[in-house]
């Protein structure tokens, strides 16, 4: 059990923010490693400030360390300055707790939240001194596994990972630990990998063969790679389809119990409590919602207890109740009141009030009322995500917010004292026209005018991102808009906004959306592209200061994959997707039917509170929603919302 600390200590004065690498956080653990104990290195492939708050990683950290037969430590991507020093001085990737070299762990487990961290994953494997390609690893090398939302299409990383875990990690991580522990030292690496395939939710790419059709030409006579014919297991006891894992009862997993409190400043530095997992609003662009069904709420009493205990322990003055759509929590009103009551009763320093943040606000006046309840002090900015500029397009994407809903919410917000609104939109959505794009600014402008009735300082910032179609969503057949097209639409928005007072436009780099699109629906052949981008120095691709589309397009050209074909092509009903053998529980037919319904501009209501339309998840996995109430929060009657109704 070695430590790189003596060598590392001498390098830290030369780099920025050396506090990123010293550990020492409140809540950090120093587990014992040794015989009969599986050592895990949980890795977030981005810089410390971004990775530390990640709840998924913290949950697994605690669960593993509660076991006698597991020991988990953490690591994050070293910033480029330290990485250069590490490579110069032969210092490998290390854990922040004991500064142990990564290769001394049995498992190197990455949390994949997005596509563009892929090159960081490769970089960290390399820095660990582990062979980059999975096929070259021996029984002495750590197992490299990935989890998180982007692991639902792990094929672009298939060459580099030993396994991917789909879905909730709480239960499966124990099963993985058990399997690894009982194998240790008693077989070849391939035997271990084979054993892993018997664990539900664990996908081992090397146990599957991919068959491609012969290369051909497109309608314009340009060469295109052959599509996937099939993905099949190479042994009889390996499942043809890997299903995700779903924790049925969140109440059994009250984690994190001791949220990590860093020594240096990080993002999201407040007490984070997950109030529910999953989302059934059915927004068609949203992969997170599609892959995390059904909804499983944490019981209201448990939320209150976790908040009270968490605040007592940490001394934070801000809480964030996290989920994909927190205002949809069935008992949200009473839960908030309960939390505020607890605070009022326990405060012996009344000036140090606690403020509650509700990320992902629903767009209606009820939610603004909630926000009013919880925001103490000055109200500055409030964020809504209408995502599309017209009701028509919102029906296509199934974000069922009418213009009236939005304007009522905005009015309520300004009336309550907010002065700045941020509105999130996607551009490049299926069936989008220039009128839809211009409508974004018109909508924002109407919001400004509403605001000016309440305050002369009213302003609206429109924040747009290019839409990247994702696996396991109804839009997985849609050909992504080109970077030029997205840029043209951004220019359209900016020109329109210049003529409207109080409307500002911010936008995500269209080139970055293009690169995301390369990985998002990529198959195994994209692995070579990712490797080339990494070798060309393309780390931290989520960071604008390091991102260059050219590295990606050069890499595509070098391996003979046309960008148009990979990213911008519309897929047809016969397309065999790279993730065809991986399931988030959704019937393929459901997704296809929902895609057709989208193009017919037909909306689908939230199945928590309306009838089930058999997407496949609950029936397939024999689970159900766990919700505290049968009516949606904020509805005025007890009658469930009818399909075709207009309320949100």
């Amino acid at each position: 059990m070695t430590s790189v600390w003596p060598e590392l200590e001498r390098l830290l004065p030369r780099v920025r923010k050396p506090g990123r690498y010293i550990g020492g956080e409140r809540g950090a653990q120093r587990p014992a490693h040794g015989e009969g104990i599986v050592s895990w290195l949980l890795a977030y492939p981005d810089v410390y400030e971004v990775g530390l708050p990640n709840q998924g990683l913290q949950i697994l950290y605690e669960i593993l360390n509660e076991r006698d037969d597991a020991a988990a430590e953490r690591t994050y991507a070293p910033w480029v300055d330290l990485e250069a020093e590490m490579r110069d001085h032969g210092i490998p990737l290390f854990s922040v707790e004991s500064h142990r070299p990564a290769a001394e762990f049995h498992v190197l487990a990455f949390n994949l939240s997005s596509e563009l961290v892929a090159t960081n994953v490769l970089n960290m494997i390399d820095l660990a001194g582990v062979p980059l390609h999975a096929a070259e690893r021996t029984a002495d090398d750590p197992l490299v596994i990935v989890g998180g939302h982007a692991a639902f299409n792990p094929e672009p990383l298939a060459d580099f990972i030993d396994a991917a875990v789909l879905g909730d990690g709480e239960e499966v991580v124990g099963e993985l630990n058990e399997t690894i522990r009982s194998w240790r030292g008693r077989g070849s690496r391939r035997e271990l990998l084979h054993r892993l395939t018997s664990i539900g939710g664990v996908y081992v790419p090397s146990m599957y063969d991919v068959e491609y059709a012969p290369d051909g030409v497109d309608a314009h006579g340009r060469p295109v790679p052959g599509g996937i014919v099939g993905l099949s297991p190479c042994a009889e006891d390996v499942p043809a389809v890997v299903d995700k894992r779903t924790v049925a009862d969140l109440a059994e997993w009250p984690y994190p119990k001791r949220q990590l409190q860093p020594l240096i400043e990080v993002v999201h530095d407040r007490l984070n409590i997950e109030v529910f997992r999953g989302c059934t609003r059915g927004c068609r662009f949203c992969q997170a919602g599609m892959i995390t069904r059904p909804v499983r709420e944490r019981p209201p009493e448990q939320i209150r207890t976790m908040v009270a205990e968490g605040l007592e322990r940490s001394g934070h003055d801000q809480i964030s109740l996290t989920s994909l759509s927190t205002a949809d929590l069935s008992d949200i009103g009473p839960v908030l009141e309960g939390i505020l009551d607890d605070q009022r009763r326990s405060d012996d320093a009344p000036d140090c009030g606690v403020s509650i943040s509700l990320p992902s606000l629903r767009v209606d006046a009820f939610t603004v009322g909630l926000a009013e309840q919880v925001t103490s002090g000055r109200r500055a900015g409030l964020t809504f995500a209408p995502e599309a500029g017209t009701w028509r397009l919102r029906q296509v994407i199934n974000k069922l917010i009418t213009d009236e809903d939005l304007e009522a919410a905005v009015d309520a917000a300004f009336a309550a004292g907010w002065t700045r609104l941020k509105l999130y939109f996607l551009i490049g959505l299926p069936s989008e026209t220039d009128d839809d794009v211009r409508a974004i600014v018109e909508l924002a402008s109407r919001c400004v005018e509403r605001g000016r009735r309440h305050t002369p300082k009213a302003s609206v910032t429109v924040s747009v991102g290019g839409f990247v179609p994702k696996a396991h969503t109804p839009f997985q057949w849609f050909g992504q808009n080109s970077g030029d097209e997205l840029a043209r639409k951004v220019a359209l928005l900016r020109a329109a906004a210049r003529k409207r007072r109080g409307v500002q436009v911010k936008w995500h780099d269209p080139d970055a959306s293009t690169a995301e699109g390369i990985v998002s629906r990529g198959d195994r052949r994209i692995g070579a592209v990712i490797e080339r981008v990494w070798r060309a120095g393309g780390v931290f691709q989520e960071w604008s200061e390091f991102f260059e589309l050219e590295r990606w397009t050069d890499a595509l050209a070098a391996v003979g994959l046309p960008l148009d074909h990979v990213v911008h092509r519309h897929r047809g009903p016969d397309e065999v997707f790279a993730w065809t053998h991986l399931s988030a529980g959704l019937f393929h037919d459901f997704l296809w039917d929902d895609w057709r319904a989208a193009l017919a501009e037909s909306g689908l209501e939230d199945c928590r509170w309306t009838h089930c339309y058999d997407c496949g998840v609950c029936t397939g996995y024999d689970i159900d929603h766990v919700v505290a109430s049968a009516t949606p929060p904020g509805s005025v009657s007890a009658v469930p919302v009818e399909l075709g109704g207009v309320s949100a």
Partner: protein
Amino acid sequence: MNAAAPSSVLRLRYRVDGAVRFVGSRDLCRLWEQAIRRARVPVAMSQGFTPRPRLAFGLALPTCAESDAEYLDVRLARAAEDVADVPSLAEALDRCLPTGVDVTAVDLVDTSAPSLQEAAAVITWALWGLGQTTEELRDAASAALAADRLYIERERKGERSVDDVRGHLLGLTVVAPGGSPVAFHVDEPLVVADVRTAGRSVRPLEVAAVVFGAGDPGTVRIRRLAQWFDDNGRRREFVSPDGTAKHELLIAEGWR
């Protein structure tokens, strides 16, 4: 809070030791705010939209340096006589601080006391990792103290200047390995430097560079040993470092 509200100042002395030295001073301020909150210190809050605890830090410690003499003034929302059990308060705070940041002494002072930053007149630094023998260090130290001028080149906001820092250097003592009178232990020769804080002062790493030719922040180690203020020609530490939290009203000693 108006001027008539009861108030006093808790003056804390603390140590920064070990890996926590790599946490920058801004983050250290944040950690102090969190600790004060968790320890339920009756701190006074500022006015305005975002009330903040009223803290006044002493001179910033360079990142990567350790210290036995850091100071913080915490403005309390209580009069001195109403502050119960200062030692327990200090201990409660100490428990809420990260490993390596320890409260070593505490006093209650009057709110009219000069600020820590204004009053600090002299700093004592320990330097080691200079890559030379005891003899070589002694020769260099003597040479520096015998010199009329000691020039260093600096760059500030894009402008270069050449400054004479000899006047800031009050003393240099070389301590052989094992001969250290100070509270921590190193296995190599150590230099104790007394530096005046007036004007732009001279930073410890600059002393290492200009006197001993050792400027690499990776190998030179720095530890602040004391901060002194001028008490009618005598230098005194703001709070005595006797290692225990104690309660001593400096008002009684004529502090104004």
